[in-house]
């Protein structure tokens, strides 16, 4: 992914967003997220909509500490880490080649830049100069090559990274292929993949991909010998109780000075009711996540709410292997009879953002802006009559719990109002997931993935392993094959627009909303934004 600012001016889409902001279609926050994701600086973005950039965007105050309520799990070899909470502690001293930011963009950390070739089979990684480990040694290309060796080692039980780089692995030995990761010079490393792979960048930013020092022993707890490149070191990691990060002594961090002196993670358990008590008695400054009705309660206590619209979503989809839904006109009519706004309100209490029936969201780097669909419940009955299905009884299936059931019920209610004879069947998870891909009409939850094409290739290509719609559109497949070889998000966006349009027109999916993540903190702190993968970027935190 090359530098995204365009020579001699701002990204053209930035102007488009600015006019949308002026028309009131975008919130200020969303406007900023989108334009800065295009590489426009925050100050320039504020300028576009005629506002002065807030002073806080400049220099953060140094000093102070924060108390964060989070489960303190034992730290372990990063590639084995299976909870974001584990990574949030070693993030203090272990850094990443690339970082996934909460606006959906990727930022080089230990890498200064990277570039992929035209079909994403070769990556050139440029190492950031001047990075040192906290024991004084310089960070070099050898460190990068060695870490790739650790990540690609499939012989280590539970190595979360092993399956991420199929293009770098030797099938026979399940370790790094000879010549796959090459040190070109002291600051350059080249990845030679056997097949196109645009997920290399998001994979390098995922929480098990922390970069460790050469003295790190496989399987060791990283807090016992905390050599890293980051600004902090662990003073104490008491599992189940607390973890304290303090400034690394005698270490010049390449990023300058991280504002906070100390970061305390305190394990108060996971009961959200206890969190209310802890905030009210001033025992914590920030929680890990706020859920359900507690969001309102914490709002009411005068705390600052952080909301992040993710790409975690629910898809209520038809399946064309069923005779009822093989007619595209019927599918489209069903899709357009459902108003996403109503579903979001009834199904998820407005704790998210409406979707556009193409399974892509603004947080995705290749998110295209498509013309809005016209919701038309009146079109459903004529379409059903034309297909001879007017008197058929339809059924929509969902999981039996919580918001999945409520969302599906909201969809069913709208279809019923539009004149369709449809019932809602709920199933417990134990039976639901056995056949989730085969139901004629049902709802499925999808997790957040950094790139839109990651979800779409799994779900909507004819060969996708999680294809639950029966969709087999040759044009879509061809576009996806192209998109999966394009590492540049801007180039991919055009293809994404075409694919999004096809998905909307095929009418298989009702994708009513994406869910938001929330957290709360006391007034007086900056930079505590929520992250789609619950990552804590400590160096962004400061006292106001």
């Amino acid at each position, binding site marked *: 992914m090359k530098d995204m600012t365009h020579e001699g001016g701002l990204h053209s889409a930035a102007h488009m967003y600015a006019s949308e902001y002026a028309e009131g279609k975008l919130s200020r926050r969303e406007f900023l997220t989108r334009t800065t994701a295009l590489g426009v600086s925050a100050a320039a973005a504020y300028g576009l909509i005629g506002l002065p950039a807030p002073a806080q965007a400049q220099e953060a105050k140094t000093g102070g500490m924060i108390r964060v309520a989070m489960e303190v799990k*034992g*730290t*372990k070899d990063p590639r*084995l*880490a*299976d909870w974001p909470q584990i990574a949030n502690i070693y993030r203090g001293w272990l850094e990443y080649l690339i970082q996934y930011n909460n606006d959906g963009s990727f930022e080089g950390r230990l890498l200064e830049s990277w570039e992929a070739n035209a079909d994403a089979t070769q990556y050139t990684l440029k190492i950031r100069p001047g990075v040192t480990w906290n024991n004084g040694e310089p960070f070099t290309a050898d460190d990068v090559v060695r870490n790739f060796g650790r990540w690609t080692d499939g*012989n280590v*039980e*539970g*190595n*979360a990274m092993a399956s991420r780089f199929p293009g770098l692995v030797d099938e026979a030995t399940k370790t790094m292929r000879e010549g796959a990761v090459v040190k070109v010079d002291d600051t350059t490393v080249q990845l030679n993949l056997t097949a196109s792979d645009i997920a290399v960048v998001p994979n390098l930013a995922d929480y098990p991909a922390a970069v460790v020092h050469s003295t790190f*022993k*496989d*399987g*060791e*707890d990283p807090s016992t010998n905390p050599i890293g490149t980051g600004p902090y070191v662990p003073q104490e*990691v*008491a*599992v*189940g*109780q607390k973890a304290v990060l303090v400034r690394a002594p005698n270490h010049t961090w390449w990023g300058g000075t991280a504002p906070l002196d100390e970061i305390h993670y*305190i*394990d*108060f*358990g996971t009961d959200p009711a*206890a969190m*209310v*008590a*802890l905030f*009210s*008695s*001033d*025992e914590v400054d920030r929680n890990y996540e706020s859920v359900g009705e507690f969001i309102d309660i914490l709002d009411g*206590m005068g705390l600052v709410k952080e909301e992040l619209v993710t790409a975690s979503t629910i898809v209520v989809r038809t399946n064309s292997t069923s005779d009822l839904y093989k007619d595209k006109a019927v599918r489209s009519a069903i899709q357009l009879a459902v108003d996403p706004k109503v579903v979001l309100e009834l199904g998820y209490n407005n704790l998210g953002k409406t979707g556009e029936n193409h399974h892509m969201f603004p947080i995705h780097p290749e998110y295209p802006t498509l013309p809005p669909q016209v919701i038309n419940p009146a079109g459903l009955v004529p379409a059903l009559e034309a297909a001879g299905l007017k008197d058929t009884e339809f059924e929509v299936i969902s999981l039996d719990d919580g918001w999945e059931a409520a969302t599906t019920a909201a969809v069913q209610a709208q279809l019923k109002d539009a004149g369709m004879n449809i019932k809602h069947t709920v199933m417990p998870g134990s039976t639901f997931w056995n056949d989730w891909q085969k139901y004629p009409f049902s709802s499925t939850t999808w997790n957040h993935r950094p790139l839109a094409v990651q979800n779409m290739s799994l779900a909507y290509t004819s060969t996708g392993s999680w294809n639950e719609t029966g969709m087999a559109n040759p044009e879509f497949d061809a576009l996806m094959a192209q998109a999966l070889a394009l590492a540049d998000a801007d180039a991919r966006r055009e293809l994404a627009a075409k694919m999004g349009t096809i998905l909307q027109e095929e009418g298989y999916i009702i994708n009513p909303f994406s869910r938001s993540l929330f957290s709360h903190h006391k007034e007086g702190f900056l930079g505590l934004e929520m992250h789609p993968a619950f990552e804590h970027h400590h160096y962004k935190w400061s006292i106001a």
Partner: protein
Amino acid sequence: MGKFVLRRLGVMLLTAIALTFVVFYLTNLPPNLEKLARTEGSVRMSEEAVQDWIEQNGHSGSVFGRYGQWLGVVPGWTYTDEKGDTRGRCFAIGQDAAAAPTYCGLLQGDWGYSTFFKKPVADSLGEKLAATGWLMLAVMLVMVPTSLFLGVLSGMREGSATDRTLSTFSIASTATPEYVSGVVLVALFATAATGISPLLAEYGLIEPKKTLFLASATSAMEDITFWNFALPVMTIALYGIGYIARMTRASMTEVMTQQYIRTARLKGVPFRTVVMKHALRNALIAPFTVIMLQFPWLLNGVVIVESLFNYKGFGWTLVQAASNNDIPLLLACSCVAVVVVLLTQLISDIGYVFLNPRIRLA
């Protein structure tokens, strides 16, 4: 008496061995080992990877052999992987395998390594026991005087209004389990929305805090204050107060009907002196045993209360050890439980001798 104590200590040892073996056997059942592999390795491991992990981390082979390793009578396991790195029971990752001792178990004074806390069991359990010690001390300081006072007061004049009132209170408090009284106390005193805290806050009586007490005792691990410690202590103490008060009352009423009390009364000794000088000491024998028996009971009381109030002591450790299948930690917890139960009984037996000269230990 020496012989008696020695015999008791022998029983304690046997009980500990029997109990730890049962715990060891149960925690080493295959599903529990798989769970351990998934928490220690990674939740994403495949079935085969889990089996490999179990084999490569010393959890395969005969259960007696592994129990022997824990005791220190069988050499500790070692495993050398395909890269030539060796790991084993008796040394940490990266340490020299050759220099490590062959045996490292209880007999060598090594309690093993806690997989949950990621540090030696002896260190982590020591800390937790100290935390629970403070909790128990506070509970005892509240519970014993209060309950004895209430018991004596109601037993002094059986059937009086005071007796009826206090008895009702004791029965009610002892009939309420901790997980009920704890939640009720939190709702009454420690939430900003219900109970009496909003009222007090409105009058500005508890500024700058928003609640009368804190519903979490986590901060008491570092600094015990009345504010963060009162509720957990009261929750445990309430249950015990009722129970001990009932026992004291029964014993007191019995003593008060004795001939020598009547004689003293008839001789014109003031009621106060009769109670304090003649009745009290005899009436306290039975409650003394009950109080000593409260220690083992406290151990399981703290399991609930420490989890409820997130106080990281012995009870909380036991819950974490069990839910993470931390084998060495669970074994050590069992040993602690055995020692506490049998030691308090021993003390109560010896204490008896001093309170009641008619009893002799042989």
